[in-house]
C-alpha cells in the first residue's frame, strides 16, 4: 500500500514539474512564468534599478563609456566606429532584443515558428515576395563590394551576440517567456533583413487592381478619375525647378498589348493610405535666429515596443544623435554638429507584375522573347510551432518570384504573376546612413544618398553652413509613359524596365528661392520632369497645408515648427464640407429631426480643426465615408480587387460635375445624383451617430477614432495602449489616425546655440515591466517634446546612470 501511495504522490509531483514547464496551446508554461526568481516577476525592474557600472565586452580596441539621460537615452562615447557600433549593438539588444529579433523573423517569413499555424499564410506571402532572397542578395553584394560596411555590420552583430550570451534566464525579455522560445544568434544578414522589412512596410502597388479597373471602367474613365497629376499639384521639389540635365531616352513601344483578362486573385495587403510622414527645412532667412531649422515626423503603424530607439553616437571625430531602428546601424533620422537630415516615404511604382507563360505544369521553362527560358525553384521550409514544417515552392523567373500561382491565392491554373521590385536589387542602404552620420556638408549628403536604393525616401537636409536641400532618392526604373501601371506581359521584352534613372537625375533642390523645402508623401515633381512618374498613393492635402503655412510664416522658432508638426487643420474637410452642405436637398433638411438638426448646425459652425475634444470631425468623417461608399461601392465585385477613386478626385467630381452620369447606379431604378447621394448619406450618418451617442455616450473625435498603440503581438492587449487621447487624422499634418501616426517627431535648429527636440509614442525600454516602456507616450499625445540636443561627456548634469565597457 505504501508503495502505491508513494508512487501515486511521486507521479503527481513529477506531473506538476513537467506540465508547469510546458506550453499548452496558447497557455504559457505557468511554472516557469510565475517562478519569482526567473519568471515574469523578474521583468518588473526598470533599467535604472538594475544596471552595471562596468561591463566586459570582447573585441573592443578601447574603453567605451555609455551615459544615460533621464529618459534612458544612451549616449555612447567611443574612440572609433568599430567600437561604437559594437556597443550600439550591445545596448540596443539590451533594451530591444525581442523586438529586433521578432521584426527580422517577420521579414524572413518565420512568424509561424513563434506563434504556430495561424501565421502560415502570412509567412508564405512574405517569402513569396522574396524578402529573404533580397536580403541574401544584398549581403553577398556588401561582402564583395563594400567590405568597410560589412566589417561594421559584423561588429554590431558581435555586440548583439555578446549581449545574448550574457543573458540569464531571469533577464530574458518577457515575450520570450510568454511565447516560450529563446533568442537565436544575430548576424549581418539579420540587419539587412530589417531594412527589407522597412521596404516591405513602405512600398505598395496597385497594378493588379488597376488592371481590373481598366477592364471595368475603360481607359478614358480611368484617366479622368485617376489622373497621373492632380489639378492642384504641389510637389516635393518646387514646381519652378528647372531640370538642368539631358534625360535618358525611353520610347513607348508601338504596340503595347497589355494582357486584359480580369484578375481574380486575393491580392496582398497594402500599406494603409493616409499614413502621413512630413519633413521640411526652413532657411535662416525665415527663422528668428538666422539658423536653418529642420523638422521630420515619419509616420508608421503605432506599435510597442516603439519602432524607434533614440541614441547619441559619438567617436573622437563625430557626434550624431537621433532615432535608430533597432537592428540597423547608426542614426536613421537625426543630426550631428554639422548637418541634420530626415526622411519621408517617396512612394513611386517600383513594384511591377508580369504574367508568365510556362511551357507545362512542371513550370521549369517559361516563354520569353519567343524562346523557352529555364526558371529556378526556391524551396521555402516554413517551420511551424507545434507541428511539422510547411513546404512551399516558389518559382523564380528573371523578372522575380512568382507570387501568385495555382498554389497561392488563386484558384486558376493559368495564373502565374511574377513580381519585379527594386527591393530585390543589390544595394547597400546601410552605407547611406553610416555616411550621413558623419557627414559635414551638402556634398557628403549627396554622396551618402547615392548608395540608397529602396524604399525610396524624400531626404530633407539642413547644414550649419546655412544650406537647405531635398532629394527624392531611390533606384527608380526607367519606364516609358504608362509602363507598369498594369499587369504586364512577361514574355514580351517591350515590357522590360529600360534601365534606371541615374542618381543625378533624381529630383532634388538646393536652397530654393522660397526659403524652404518640404515633403509630405505627395508627387515628387511637377509634370515638367522629363521621366515618367506614377504612384497610386500620393498625398493631396498635407503637402498643400504644409507649404501654405511655410510660405506665410517668418521669424520662425523651433516652437513654431513643433506646433506645425501638431497642426490639426483638416484641409480635406475644409474643401469638401462646403460642397457637401451645398448639395444637401433643402426639403430633406426641413425634414430632419432634432438630432439631424444638431449635427447639421455643428458641421456648419465647424472651424475645420480636429482636436481630440471636438465632435465635428466625427460627424464629417462618418458622413464622408457614407458618401464615398454611396458613390463608389457599386463598382465592387466580390473576389475581383480594384481601388476606388481617392477623396481628392471624389471631392473634385462633387464640386465640378454634380450632374455627371457616374453618380448613377445603373442597378437601381431611380437615378442617383450627387445631390441625392449627399442627402441619403447624411441620413445614414444621422442614424449611425444616434447609435454612437446611445452606446458610447460621447462622440468626440478622440473617442471615435480611438488611436491605439498596439504591442507587436496583437493578442498582448494589456501591453498595448488602447484609445489614446489625441487629435489629428489621416490627411492632416498631425496624421494620427486609429493605428497610424507620427512614430517620431524631431525638430533641430542648426548652428551655435542650436537645440534639438524629439518625441515618440512609447519609451526607450522594450520591457513592458519598465517605467521607460511608455513614459513618453503621454507627452507625445499632448504634442510635447524632450530635449535631445547633443551632449558631451563632460556636460552631463543629470545622468541616470553610466556604464563603462572594457575589453
Amino acid at each position, binding site marked *: 500500500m505504501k508503495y502505491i501511495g*508513494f508512487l501515486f*504522490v511521486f507521479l*503527481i509531483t513529477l506531473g506538476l514539474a513537467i506540465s508547469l514547464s510546458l506550453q499548452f496551446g496558447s497557455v504559457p508554461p505557468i511554472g*516557469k512564468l510565475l517562478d*519569482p526568481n526567473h519568471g515574469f516577476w523578474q521583468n518588473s525592474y526598470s533599467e535604472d534599478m538594475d544596471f552595471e557600472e562596468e561591463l566586459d565586452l570582447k573585441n573592443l580596441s578601447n574603453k567605451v563609456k555609455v551615459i544615460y539621460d533621464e529618459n534612458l537615452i544612451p549616449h555612447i562615447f567611443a574612440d572609433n566606429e568599430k567600437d561604437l557600433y559594437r556597443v550600439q549593438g550591445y545596448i540596443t539588444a539590451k533594451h530591444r532584443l525581442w523586438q529586433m529579433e521578432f521584426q527580422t523573423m517577420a521579414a524572413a517569413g518565420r512568424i509561424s515558428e513563434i506563434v504556430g499555424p495561424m501565421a502560415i499564410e502570412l509567412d508564405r506571402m512574405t517569402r513569396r515576395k522574396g524578402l529573404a532572397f533580397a536580403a541574401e542578395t544584398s549581403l553577398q553584394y556588401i561582402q564583395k563590394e563594400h567590405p568597410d560596411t560589412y566589417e561594421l555590420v559584423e561588429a554590431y552583430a558581435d555586440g548583439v551576440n555578446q549581449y545574448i550570451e550574457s543573458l540569464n534566464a531571469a533577464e530574458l525579455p518577457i515575450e520570450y517567456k510568454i511565447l516560450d522560445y529563446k533568442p537565436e544568434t544575430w548576424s549581418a544578414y539579420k540587419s539587412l533583413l530589417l531594412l527589407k522589412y522597412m521596404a516591405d512596410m513602405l512600398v505598395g502597388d496597385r497594378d493588379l487592381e488597376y488592371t481590373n479597373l481598366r477592364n471595368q471602367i475603360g481607359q478614358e474613365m480611368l484617366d479622368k478619375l485617376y489622373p497621373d497629376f492632380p489639378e492642384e499639384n504641389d510637389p516635393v521639389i518646387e514646381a519652378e525647378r528647372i531640370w538642368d540635365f539631358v534625360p535618358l531616352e525611353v520610347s513607348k513601344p508601338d504596340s503595347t498589348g497589355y494582357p486584359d483578362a480580369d484578375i481574380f486573385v486575393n491580392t496582398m495587403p497594402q500599406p494603409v493610405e493616409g499614413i502621413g510622414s512630413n519633413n521640411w527645412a526652413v532657411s535662416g532667412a525665415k527663422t528668428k535666429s538666422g539658423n536653418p531649422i529642420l523638422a521630420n515626423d515619419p509616420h508608421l503603424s503605432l506599435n510597442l515596443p516603439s519602432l524607434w530607439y533614440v541614441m547619441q553616437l559619438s567617436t573622437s571625430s563625430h557626434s550624431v544623435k537621433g532615432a535608430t531602428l533597432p537592428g540597423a546601424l547608426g542614426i536613421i533620422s537625426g543630426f550631428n554638429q554639422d548637418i541634420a537630415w530626415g526622411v519621408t516615404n517617396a512612394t513611386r511604382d517600383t513594384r511591377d507584375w508580369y504574367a508568365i507563360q510556362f511551357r507545362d505544369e512542371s513550370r521549369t521553362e517559361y516563354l520569353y522573347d519567343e524562346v523557352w527560358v529555364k526558371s529556378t525553384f526556391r524551396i521555402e521550409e516554413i517551420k511551424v510551432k507545434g507541428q511539422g514544417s510547411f513546404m512551399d515552392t516558389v518559382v523564380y523567373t528573371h523578372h522575380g518570384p512568382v507570387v501568385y500561382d495555382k498554389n497561392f491565392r488563386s484558384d486558376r491554373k493559368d495564373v502565374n504573376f511574377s513580381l519585379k521590385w527594386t527591393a530585390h536589387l543589390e544595394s547597400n542602404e546601410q552605407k547611406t546612413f553610416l555616411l550621413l552620420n558623419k557627414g559635414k556638408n551638402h556634398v557628403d549628403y549627396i554622396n551618402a544618398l547615392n548608395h540608397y536604393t529602396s524604399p525610396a525616401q524624400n531626404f530633407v537636409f539642413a547644414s550649419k553652413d546655412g544650406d537647405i536641400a531635398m532629394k527624392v532618392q531611390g533606384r527608380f526604373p526607367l519606364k516609358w509613359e504608362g509602363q507598369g501601371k498594369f499587369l504586364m506581359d512577361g514574355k514580351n521584352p517591350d515590357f522590360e524596365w529600360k534601365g534606371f534613372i541615374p542618381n543625378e537625375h533624381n529630383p532634388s533642390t538646393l536652397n530654393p528661392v522660397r526659403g524652404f523645402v518640404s515633403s509630405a508623401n505627395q508627387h515628387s515633381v511637377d509634370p515638367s520632369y522629363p521621366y515618367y512618374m506614377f504612384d497610386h498613393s500620393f498625398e493631396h492635402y498635407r503637402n498643400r497645408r504644409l507649404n501654405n503655412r511655410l510660405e506665410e510664416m517668418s521669424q520662425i522658432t523651433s516652437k513654431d515648427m513643433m506646433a506645425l508638426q501638431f497642426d490639426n487643420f483638416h484641409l480635406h474637410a475644409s474643401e469638401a464640407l462646403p460642397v457637401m452642405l451645398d448639395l444637401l436637398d433643402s426639403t430633406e433638411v426641413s425634414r430632419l429631426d432634432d438630432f439631424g438638426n444638431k449635427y447639421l448646425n455643428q458641421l456648419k459652425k465647424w472651424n475645420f480643426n480636429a482636436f481630440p475634444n471636438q465632435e465635428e470631425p466625427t460627424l464629417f468623417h462618418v458622413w464622408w465615408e457614407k458618401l464615398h461608399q454611396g458613390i463608389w461601392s457599386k463598382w465592387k465585385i466580390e473576389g475581383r480587387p480594384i481601388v476606388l477613386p481617392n477623396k481628392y478626385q471624389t471631392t473634385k467630381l462633387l464640386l465640378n460635375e454634380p450632374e455627371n452620369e457616374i453618380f448613377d447606379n445603373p442597378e437601381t431604378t431611380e437615378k442617383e445624383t450627387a445631390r441625392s447621394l449627399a442627402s441619403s448619406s447624411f441620413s445614414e450618418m444621422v442614424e449611425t451617430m444616434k447609435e454612437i451617442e446611445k452606446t458610447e455616450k460621447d462622440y468626440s473625435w478622440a473617442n471615435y477614432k480611438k488611436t491605439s498603440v498596439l504591442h507587436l503581438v496583437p493578442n*498582448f492587449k494589456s501591453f498595448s495602449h488602447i484609445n489614446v487621447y489625441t487629435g489629428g487624422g489621416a490627411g492632416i499634418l498631425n496624421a494620427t489616425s486609429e493605428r497610424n501616426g507620427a512614430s517620431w517627431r524631431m525638430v533641430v535648429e542648426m548652428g551655435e546655440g542650436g537645440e534639438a527636440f524629439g518625441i515618440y509614442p512609447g519609451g526607450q525600454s522594450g520591457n513592458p*515591466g519598465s517605467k521607460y516602456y511608455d513614459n513618453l507616450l503621454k507627452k507625445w499625445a499632448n504634442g510635447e517634446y524632450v530635449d535631445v540636443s547633443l551632449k558631451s561627456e563632460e556636460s552631463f548634469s543629470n545622468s541616470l546612470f553610466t556604464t563603462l565597457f572594457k575589453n
Partner: protein
Amino acid sequence: MKKSLLLFVIVVLMVLLVGPYAPYWILMIGVAIISFLVGAGKVSSFVSSGLGFGLTWMALSLFISIKTDSELPKRMAELMGLENDNLLLFGTALLGFLIGGFSGLTGSMLRKLFERKN
C-alpha cells in the same frame, strides 16, 4: 513539531539562496531530498514544505512588486484573464505551495519506504 519547523526553515533558505541559480524543478528535487533527510511526518512534510516554498515565492513576488512599483503584474494578470494582480500574487503562492508540498510529501514517503525495510 521541531522537525517540521526545521524543514520549513531549510526549504525557505533553499528557495531564497538556491532559487536564483536554479529552475524550479531543481528546487523540487532539493525539497524532496531535504524532506527525506529531515524525516518529518507525511502531513507535516507536505504542509511545511508547501508553506516554506509558497510563502517564500509570495514574499519574493511581493518584495519585487513593492520595490519596483511596476505595472507588469497588472499587465500580466490582465493577459492571463485574471481580474486583479493580487490574484496573480496568490496564484504564485499557491503554485509554490503545491510544488513545494508535493515534493516534500514525496521525500517523506520515500523515507517511509526505507524505514519499513530497516
